[in-house]
Every structure is written in C-alpha cells, then in structure tokens.
C-alpha cells in the first residue's frame, strides 16, 4: 500500500475518532473535550498538508494518481455477470490532495473559531462531535474512488448537515430548516442514485476508472440519450448538495445553524462537494448534459444574486452569495472550464469561510443581532473583523489582486469561449448572466460592508419585539451571559484571539499570490497547471457525434488559432496564454475536437473576460457607493418605485411558496387521500367481504338452527317425552311392578288361550 494511501486513511479516520470520543465522553472530559476535536483536526491537517506537499509541490505532475481498493461486498459468481464484487477504495491525485488540505484546514479553523463562538452552549461537546463526523464524511467524498462510496459519504454529509443545522433544535425554525435541507438533498440524491444505477446497469461496476474505461471503449449498451440522462441525473446530486436552482431553497434556511457551521458546511466544503462530484464525472458528461449544467449554473448565479441584494439578514446575504458563487462553479463546469471551476471552488471556500466567520464574529459581538438594518459603524469597534471581512468581500466581488478575481475571471473566460464555440445565440446568455451576476455581487457586498461597518450604530432603532426575539434566540443559543444586554447601546467589542486567528488566516488565503504569480491570470498559477481539464470519454464513446462536432467546430478553430499565433510575439501574456493552452494540449490530446475547441477559446477569451468583468465589478461597487455612501439614490424610494421587483427579490422569487403550494401540499394531500383510500376502500372491501360472509353465516346458522338442528332437537324431544311418560310407570313401588309382571302374565295367558282356541 502506498504511503500516501496510509496517510490518507489516517486522515479519513481521525475525525471519526474525534466524533466517537466526543459523542460518548464529552461530558466526562474537561472543557467538554473541545481540545480533542481541535487537536485531532490539527493532526489531520498536518498529515493532509504533508500529502499536499508530496503530491502537489514535490511530484508536481498533472497526471499524478495513486489508488488503492479492497473488496467490500462479494456477490460471488453471479450468473450472467461472472464474479461480481463491490470495491471500496481511495484515490489520491492533485485534486484530492488539494481538497484534503482545504477541507482539513477550514475544518481546523472552524473548530478553533467555535471554541470561542460556541463557548458555554449546553451541547458544546456534541457540537464538536458533529463537526467531527461532518469532516469525516466530507473527506470520504473527497477520497472515494467509486460512485457507490461517494454516494454513501454524500448521504453522510447530508446527515451531518442535518444534525448541525438543527443544532438549536428547540427553535422550531431550526427544526424546519434541517428537515428541509435533508429532504431537498434527498431529492437530489435520488437523481444521483438513478444516474449511478444507469451506469452500473451497463458495466456492473461503480469504480470511476472502470466506468471511464468502459465508456471510452464504447461499451455503453443503451442509446446516447440514456448517457445524457445519466449525466444530468448525476448532476442532480450536485443540484441538491450545491443548492443549485431549483433545489437551492434549503441553503438560506440552513443559516439557522450556528454560524461556524454555516462557514464550514454551507459555504466552504459541503456545498462544494457537488461541484467536486461533477468534476469527478466531468469526462462522462455528454455535450447536451453539459449544456443543461451550464444553463442551470447561470440561472442559479443570476437568481441568487438578484435575491441577495434585498436581504437584510447578514447571513442570508452571504448564503445567497454562496448560491450565486456555486452557480458560477457549475456554470464553469458546464462550459467546460473545468480547472477554472475547481479553482473558484477553492478560492471561494477560503474567502467565503472568512466572510461567514467574520459575520459570526459580528453576530457574536452584537449579541446575536443578525439584521443588518440594526448594525452599522462596527469598523471602529472591530478593526480586525473589519479588515478581514473587507478583504474577503473584495475577493468575492472579484476585484483584482484577490484570489476571487483569478478564478471568476477564468470561469467567465471559459463561458465566453464556450459561447463562441457553440455558435452564439442563446449560448451567449450564459456569459451575459455571469457578468451581470458579477455586477450584482459587487453591489450587494458593497451594500453589506456599508450597512455593517460604516455609518452610525442603528441598534437602538430596532423595534422592541425584534429585540426580544433576539434575546430569545440568545437564550435558545444558550451562550454565556458574561456581558450584560440590558442597557440600550450594546457593548460591541472585538472578538477573542481564537476567533480572530481564523479570520486572518483565511483572509490571507484569499490573496492572489497564494495561487498565481500573476495577479491577472490564474492560468499561470500552480493550481490550474495541476488541475488540467481531463479529456472527455464520451466523444470517443460515440464517434459519429464526435465527427459531427468536429465538422461544426473546425472553422471556429481556424478562426481563433491564427489570431493566437500572430498575437503571440506581440503580447507576452497572450503568448503565455497560448503557451498554457499549448501545454494543456500537450498534457492531454483531446480526442473530442469540441472540447479542445472550447478550452482553446476559453484561453483566447481571457482578456475579454478580464475587461468586461472588471468593468462590471467597478459598476457594481460604484453603484453601491452611490446608493449607500453618498445617498444619491435612496434605496427605500427605489424599492417603492419598483415595488413588484423589490418584493419578488425580497421573497426569494417565491420559490418556497411555490414548493409549499405544489410539492409539499401536494404530497400531503396525496398521502391523506391514500390513507382515506386505504381505510375506506381497501379496508372497506375487506370488511365488506367480512360482513357479507357474516351475513351468509347468519343465514346458514338460522338454517342450521331451524332445520338441521331442528331434526335433532325433535328426536331429543320425542325421546324426552316418551321418557317422561315411561317414567310415570316407574313408580319405584314394588307392588306396581308386581302388577305389571302379572299383567304380562295375563297377557301370556291370553295369548296362550288364543293359541288353544284354534
């Protein structure tokens, strides 16, 4: 077994160990055993850091891959299939090692942060246990080498998310949210499961590698539509987990959970798992499936952004921005900007975790005030939080010199290239939506920064009932009441070091130089070199489609290629782009011309993307300034002016209401109807038959009583009466007997005489 495998197994099992220890013994340990969680995660991070170092830094090979598996279920010699085994295994490549490091790092930071944030909660120990099992499941997703085990950990992640969202289960809203999250994920999982089943039914294996190989060998027995369906169904898993439209509704509600959990699960890692999974199956997705994915991603990005601009809850804004950013990633995958999407996954994980932790710090400091309308002017009280939060905001908005800029730009570039290759028309909708969402992102983040940190504190404006509600939340939260809440101006103060340190680390990780030497081009960075776009196997699976695509794509290739060569000497950076493009081609000879074309076009569109996106971001930021800083436009008046739009956005496009009205009400009505059917029809028939039988039985019994039994009784009666009569004769008196005896004698004599007479 490869040493990396051993290390990764250790990393995988350490959080589970933490879970087991804490769930059983947290009350016996000092400090409810939070040090156990932090320590174990620290170890896990150290080990994954070494894995990261060995794989990414030392090996520095895009094609690096070690795998190991063992037989989990052995179905023996199955007729028609042969010896059938389900294997469990671990695969380690660049992506895995990067994800490992990222997940363990953020998890470690969140553990650390939580020691401050959750201090004094009555289920403090259980909280860390849940964090442990979440980390375990997440690492399982990252490490697993086959669809079955990834599905298993997929569900386990859903469980831990369920447990953590509902951590304050006394709050009805939290209980609702956790249920909603789990069910929405389940809906997605069904699709994912069906997709897995389609692939299994063809190849009788779950392993990624074997599925790839079989598809590449064209062993897929069903029609191409089934393959597309498989791709889309598998993508449904991502839709559920990554909160893509139309299953995005659970993620904002999931903010009912503790804020560090939101940072860890619902911003950084779990929601990214969907993207990670789509990346794993990227090469078996047919072009049609990719189109669907791209459009869904674009819609999600745009819709979430429009919703985010009107939300007042600080965490909800971040939640919708998360949805929007996940939409970017999915969009990126859909358009074939594979590495860009994963790049954005990582960068987003860091700065979004930073944002959430920062918001958590603010909420903590303001005694569980989450409504931005009652904040303001916090920059003076909380400089550290302010600085890190702002930095992460810039990254999210995608301003240059930040990591977000690099990744988002790469995605948008890919989108433009994709649109070019696909021949424009409707496909241009995708980059357009992307850019527009970028603008909106800049706007609502600017709004948030302003509302939270600038201006004067508006806490005293808060209506009383809300105020008390805040207190209830506080009580339910059960945090320590060290500072006194009862005079009006809330003593806002900077948070303690164990909550500050994660903010700083994460903010540092959302700067550009971590990923790329060039602040303008992520393609120069190690990340996109290490995570090249893999060659699709589907084109090879159906050559006629590949040839057709080649026919379509060839002219576009010719159109773009000369421009690339001609410009190469002139513009160095463009040359670099071409070089990187060439390198990508060198790394993989893409058998599918369409894919090669898209990748090439994406690189080509790099600068177009930069210009447009920067413009849009500046537009958004300036708009935010105009509205909130200079107050040139009054947001409330504007809201009134476009009230329908405003309400549409404020009510999140009414998705919850729609689902409530259709699916939930529908299924409940169906359930009630079926129960009625069950009781009245099915059981009614049964009881009806029973009644009929009983009726017939009564008839039968009356016949029996009166006729059959009648005969018997009659006999008995006659016997009885005769007996009664005869009993009269039996007086018991000797003399009566003698009389009878002599009667007989006389009778004999009479007979005798008659004999004698004749």
């Amino acid at each position, binding site marked *: 077994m490869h040493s990396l495998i051993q290390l990764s197994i250790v990393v995988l099992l350490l959080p589970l160990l933490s879970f087991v220890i804490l769930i059983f013994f947290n009350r016996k340990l000092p400090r409810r055993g939070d040090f156990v969680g932090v320590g174990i995660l620290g170890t896990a991070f150290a080990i994954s850091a070494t894995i990261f170092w060995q794989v990414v830094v030392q090996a520095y090979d895009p094609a690096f891959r070690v795998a190991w598996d063992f037989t989990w279920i052995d179905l023996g010699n199955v007729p028609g299939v042969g010896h059938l085994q389900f294997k469990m295994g671990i695969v380690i490549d660049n992506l895995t090692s990067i994800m490992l490091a990222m997940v363990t790092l953020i998890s470690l930071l969140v553990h650390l942060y939580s020691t401050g944030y959750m201090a004094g909660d009555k289920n403090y120990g259980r909280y860390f246990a849940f964090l442990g099992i979440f980390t375990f499941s997440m690492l399982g997703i990252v490490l697993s080498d086959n669809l079955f085990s990834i599905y298993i950990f997929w569900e386990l992640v859903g469980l831990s998310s369920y447990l953590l969202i509902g951590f304050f289960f006394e709050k009805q809203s939290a209980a609702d949210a956790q249920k909603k999250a789990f069910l929405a994920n389940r809906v997605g999982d069904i699709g994912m499961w069906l997709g897995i089943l389609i692939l299994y039914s063809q190849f009788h294996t779950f392993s990624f590698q074997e599925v790839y190989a079989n598809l590449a060998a064209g062993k897929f027995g069903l029609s191409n539509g089934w393959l597309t369906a498989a791709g889309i169904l598998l993508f449904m898993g991502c839709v559920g987990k990554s909160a893509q439209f139309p299953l995005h509704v659970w993620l904002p509600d999931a903010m009912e959970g503790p804020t560090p959990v939101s940072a860890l699960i619902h911003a950084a890692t779990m929601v990214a798992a969907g993207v990670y999974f789509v990346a794993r199956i990227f090469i078996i997705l047919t072009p049609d499936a990719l189109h669907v994915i791209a459009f869904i991603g674009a819609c999600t990005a745009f819709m979430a952004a429009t919703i985010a601009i009107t939300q007042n809850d600080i965490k909800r804004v971040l939640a919708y921005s998360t949805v929007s950013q996940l939409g970017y990633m999915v969009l990126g995958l859909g358009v074939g900007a594979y590495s860009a999407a994963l790049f954005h996954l990582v960068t987003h994980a860091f700065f979004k975790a930073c944002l959430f932790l920062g918001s958590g710090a603010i909420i903590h400091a303001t005694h569980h005030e989450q409504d931005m309308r009652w904040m303001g002017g916090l920059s003076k009280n909380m400089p550290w939080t302010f600085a890190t939060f702002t930095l992460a905001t810039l990254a999210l908005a995608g301003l240059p010199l930040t990591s977000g800029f690099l990744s988002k730009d790469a995605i948008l570039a890919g989108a433009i290239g994709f649109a070019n290759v696909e021949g424009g028309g409707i496909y241009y909708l995708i980059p357009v939506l992307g850019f527009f969402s970028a603008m909106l992102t800049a706007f609502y983040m600017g709004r948030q920064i302003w509302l939270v940190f600038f201006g004067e504190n508006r806490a005293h404006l808060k209506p009383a009932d809300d105020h008390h509600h805040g207190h209830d939340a506080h009580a339910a939260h059960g945090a320590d009441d060290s500072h006194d809440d009862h005079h009006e101006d809330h003593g806002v103060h900077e948070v303690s070091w164990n909550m500050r340190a994660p903010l700083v680390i994460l903010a540092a990780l959302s700067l550009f130089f971590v990923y790329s030497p060039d602040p303008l081009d992520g393609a120069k960075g190690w990340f996109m070199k290490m995570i090249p776009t893999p060659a699709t196997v589907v084109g090879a699976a159906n050559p006629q489609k590949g040839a057709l695509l080649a026919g379509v794509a060839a002219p576009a290739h010719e159109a773009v290629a000369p421009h690339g060569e001609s410009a190469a000497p002139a513009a160095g950076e463009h040359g670099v782009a071409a070089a990187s493009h060439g390198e990508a081609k060198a790394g993989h000879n893409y058998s599918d011309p369409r894919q090669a074309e898209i990748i090439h076009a994406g690189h080509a569109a790099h600068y177009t993307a930069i210009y447009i996106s920067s413009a849009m971001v500046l537009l958004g930021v300036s708009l935010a300034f105009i509205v909130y800083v200079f107050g040139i436009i009054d947001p409330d008046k504007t809201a009134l002016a476009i009230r329908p739009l405003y309400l549409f956005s404020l009510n999140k496009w009414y998705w919850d209401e729609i689902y409530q009205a259709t699916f939930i009400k529908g299924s409940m009505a169906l359930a009630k109807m079926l129960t009625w059917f069950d009781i009245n029809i099915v059981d009614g028939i049964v009881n009806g038959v029973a009644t009929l039988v009983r009726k017939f039985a009564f008839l039968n019994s009356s016949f029996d009583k009166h006729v059959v039994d009648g005969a018997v009784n009659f006999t008995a009666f006659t016997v009885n009466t005769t007996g009664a009569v005869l009993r009269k004769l039996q007086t018991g008196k000797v*003399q009566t007997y003698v*009389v009878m005896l002599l009667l007989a*004698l*006389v009778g004999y*004599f*009479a007979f*005798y005489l008659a004999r*004698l007479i004749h």
Partner: protein
Amino acid sequence: MSTQTTTVIFYLFAALTVCSAAFVVLTRNVIYSAFSLLFTFFGVAALYVFLSADFLAVTQVVVYVGGILVLLLFGVMFTNSIMNPGQKTEVSNTLAGSLLFLGVTGGVLYSFFASPGWMSTGKTLQGSIVGPVGFETMSRYVLPFEMVSILLLAALIGAAFLARFDKKGNS
C-alpha cells in the same frame, strides 16, 4: 272310614283353607289376617295328609305354625304399636289387583283343565313317606339338603344381624 266321609272332610278343609286365605287377604286388620293365616296353614297341612304326605304335614305345622307364623306375629307386634292392636291398613290398586286375581286364577285353572295330559296315572303314592323321605334325603338329594341347611343357617344369622338393635340402642 268310607270315601264319603273322607270327601266331606276334604271339602271342609278345602273350604277352611280357601276361606281363611281369602280372609287373610281381605281383612284390614293385620292381627286378624295373621290369625286367619294360622287356619290356612292348618288347612293346608290337612290337605297334605290327604295327599298322604304325613311327614310334610307335620313339618308344615311345626315350621309354619310354630315358626313362620310366630315370626309374622312378632313382626306385627314390632311394626304396629301395641297400643292400638286393631289397626287398619290401607289397600292400594284394588281394582287392578282384583282383575288380575281373576285373570291369573282363571288363567291358571283354565290351563289346568284344558290340558288333559295331567289326568292321574295309574300308580299313586301310598302309605307313609317318612322312610322314603329319609332315604331320599340321605341318598339322592343329599347335596340339595346340605345346601339348603347351610342356606337356612346363613339366612337365620343374616336375619338376626339385620334385625338386631344397633349400638345406639334406638329401636
């Protein structure tokens, strides 16, 4: 003596027997019937003599008159309180009784007379039968004799046992 006188004497005894028997049956007084039974036995004994069974006649007198009748009288004395000796006893189902009496008697008599084969054969029993009785008793009928004596003994003991006064002395 002449056959006429014997005939007359026979008819006297026969009448005595039958009438006293009827009286035994018909009277309501137990004492009367008991004493009239005495006369019946005497009459029967006389008839035995006419049947030239002298030994049996004597036995009849000794056993019946001396034994059974005394027993019966004792019974009467025991069962009927001495205070009212003339106690009447009830009669039940007289009608059936009388009808049957007529029927049985008539039937028996008719069958007697309707069967002519019973007319007397030539040889009859003559003289005293004491000797022959003793001879027969010790020879051919010795077993019945012994058995009947044992029976008698057992019966008497049993009777004594049955009729005894029990310990509690209530009679």
